[in-house]
Each structure stands twice: as structure tokens, then as C-alpha cells.
């Protein structure tokens, strides 16, 4: 009997202890980072140094001439830019995104490592609808000698963009779409629920379909992104 307990119960105890230690370790590391962050703030996050860092970061992105994304919380805007010029923008109204959420998002995005630029690390389309009926595109495609599939655009009902550091943007529209990959949808949601207690900051917006279409199609994994905190 005791042998059975040993063979089954002990590995389980070891596993439980291991998990407990893992979470304890994370908590300790987070605490250490927090206190380090407080010290850093006192020393180097004087407003002008952070302003300078942000300016240098945008200059660096703008010089490339390529598309980049900016959460400009000073203007309450989500922007796509090229060479410092705004080519697409969406106003983040206070009803859907609060000042506190913007602050938390900015702090987590930049983090203690001062990551002023982060690439989009994940993108997931939960559900979407076809912009134009296939039957219409079949006729158009035939008339203009183009594969109808090339003409089709998926208008998202819901999609997510993720960055490192536990930051996430979720975009909804009023489009009634069809789930793209139901199993993956569930797995991603479960993963996020599990990750939440360990720190995640998400913004959720409901955008007009056309705006969401551009944001969904123009953003790809790797797209450099930066955040201007409100203050």
C-alpha cells in the first residue's frame, strides 16, 4: 500500500512542488523586476529621457521608410505610419479604452527592459466574412481575366494582435463572420485565460469594418510597433 502511494503519489507531489516553485519563482522575479523598475524610474525615467528615447525610436523606424504601427496614447490614436507620416489612424474613444488601460498597456509594452519598439509577435483571426459574394467575384474575375480568389477580401469579425511582454489588442467589428479555425480559437482563448494571472494587458476596440479590414491586412507578424504613453 505504502509502495503504491510512493509510486503514484510521490511523483504527483514532486510535480505539485515543482509547479509551486515555478510560480513562486515567477512571483519573486516579478517583485525583483518591480523594485528594479522603481529604481530605474527614479534614476533614468525622468520625462525628458523617456521622451528622447521615444523620439529616437520613432526616428529609427521612420528612417526605414517602411510601414510601422504606433499607439499614440497622447492623441488617443492607433496609427499606421510611413516615414513619420500618418497613413491610417483610428481614434481610441474613452468609452472603450480608459486612461488606466492605456497606461497599463504602455507600461507593460515598454517594460523594465525599455523595449520602445516591439514586433507584432502573433496575429489571430477568430472569425471573418467575405467582403464580396463569391458569385459576384466569379463574374468580375471572368470579365477582367483574374482569379476571383485574388479579388476576395476577408472582413474580420474579431482578431487579435499580440506583442511580447504580455500586450494584446483585440479588434471587433459588427460583421457576422464564420469562425476560421474553431479549435485554434478555443486553444488561444484558454491560453490567454491561463496567462492572465501572470500579467497581461489588453486593449479591446470595436472598429468599423473597413477600418478593421485595413488594420487586419496591413499588420503582419514582425511589424514594428511603438507606444507613446499618454504621460
Amino acid at each position, binding site marked *: 500500500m505504502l509502495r503504491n502511494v510512493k509510486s503514484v503519489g510521490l511523483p504527483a507531489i514532486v510535480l505539485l512542488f*515543482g509547479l509551486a516553485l515555478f510560480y513562486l*519563482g515567477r512571483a519573486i522575479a516579478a517583485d525583483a523586476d518591480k523594485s528594479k523598475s522603481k529604481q530605474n524610474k527614479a534614476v533614468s525615467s525622468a520625462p525628458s529621457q523617456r521622451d528622447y528615447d521615444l523620439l529616437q525610436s520613432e526616428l529609427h523606424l521612420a528612417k526605414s521608410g517602411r510601414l510601422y504601427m504606433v499607439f499614440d496614447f497622447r492623441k488617443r490614436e492607433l496609427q499606421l505610419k510611413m516615414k513619420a507620416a*500618418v*497613413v491610417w489612424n483610428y481614434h481610441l474613444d474613452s468609452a472603450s479604452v480608459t486612461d488606466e488601460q492605456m497606461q497599463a498597456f504602455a507600461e507593460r509594452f515598454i517594460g523594465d527592459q525599455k523595449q520602445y519598439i516591439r514586433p507584432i509577435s502573433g496575429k489571430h483571426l477568430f472569425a471573418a466574412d467575405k467582403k464580396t459574394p463569391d458569385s459576384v467575384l466569379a463574374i468580375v474575375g471572368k470579365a477582367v481575366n483574374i482569379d476571383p480568389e*485574388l*479579388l476576395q477580401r476577408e472582413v474580420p469579425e474579431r482578431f487579435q494582435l499580440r506583442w511580447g511582454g504580455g500586450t494584446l489588442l483585440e479588434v471587433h467589428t459588427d460583421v457576422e463572420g464564420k469562425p476560421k479555425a474553431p479549435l485554434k480559437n478555443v486553444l488561444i482563448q484558454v491560453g490567454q485565460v491561463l496567462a492572465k494571472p501572470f500579467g497581461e494587458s489588453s486593449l479591446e476596440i470595436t472598429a468599423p469594418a473597413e477600418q478593421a479590414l485595413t488594420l487586419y491586412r496591413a499588420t503582419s507578424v514582425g511589424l514594428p510597433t511603438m507606444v507613446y504613453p499618454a504621460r
Partner: protein
Amino acid sequence: MKFIIKSLSILAIIGITSLLAVKFLGKKESPFGLKLINLPSQPKAAQKAIADSRLALSKMRPAGLYIVIDTHANKLSLRKDDRILLQAECSTGSGGELIDSTTGRRWVFNTPRGIFKVNSKLAQPWWRKPDWAFIEENEEIPKNEKERYDPEMLGDYALGFGDGYFIHGTIYERLLGVSVTHGCVRLGSEDLKKVYDKVPIGTPVYIF
């Protein structure tokens, strides 16, 4: 006793591994080669460094009007500073491919992305049909140059932005909003006139 030592060792290994994972996993991202410089310690020098950076950034932005073409939603907008002065439905490149079976020549019909400038403005433009226009229609490429010209296809105006690409009108206005072109940007006649009237040569064109 042996068992306790074994268990403690396993726990220690798990704990240390977890701490190391927490410590180093978050550092994987590339900062895009950005090297941050510290602000000069003197207040005046610090102010100047910030002002210089702001100026450098604002110099990159277009000073006046600029055109933005969103190939994803097939929208053209005319912007100035933070304002949208005009927004219109357009058609951009289909992404389709054409291969000439006799010569093996290949064309991909994309609207180029990047930053360009309006380098020509034409009223009542004629289209000089390139080879692909004949190949696509299974027609023979004419030997007589005059047979290449079409006075109607481009509408009333055309604004060139380099490499043979134009913002122009269309006889297929019902297809605006769909990506059906060979790379040019088609606009409806009313919007095209407004853009043509407002935009001078040299206006930046941002395409994404």
C-alpha cells in the same frame, strides 16, 4: 532519506530552471538594431537634443498635401497634417500573374508599395497599351505603334507616380473598391477631378 534527497534535488532543478526561464525568455525580441543614446547631462544640451530629434522627425513628414493609397481596403485619401481632406474608393493591383506562353515573359499585377511622388499630371491622357495588354486578350502585339493607343481607358486625368504607374480614371467605375487593376490606381471621375485639381507635381504618394 535517499528519497528525500532525490525529491529535493528534482525540486531544486525545476525551481532553478523556472527562474532562468523567467529571467531570459522575455529578452528574445530584436530591438530592430536600435541603439539608444543617453540625454546629455547638461539641461541646455538635453533640451537641444530633444528639439533636434523633434525637428528631424517633423522634417520627414510631408509639409503639405499628401496622397495615401490603402491597397487593403482600396481607399485613396488626400491628407494634410492630421486631417483627411478627401477619401475615395479606388481600385488597386489584383496581384494576378500573366505569363506569355511564347516568350516566357512574366508580369505580376501589383500596385507598388512605398513612398513615391506625383511626377506628371495629364489631362485627357491616352493609354499606350503595353505588350501584356495584348497578350492578356490573346491578341497579336501590333507592329504599328499607333495601334497601341487607347484614348478612353484612363478617363479624364492621370497622375503619374513613376515606373509607368498612374492614378487615373476608369470606364469600369462599378468595380471601384475591388482589386482588379494591373498595378495602376483607378479612381471615379468626380474624385479624380478633385485630386487632379488639388494636387501639385511633387506631392508625396504613400502606398501601403
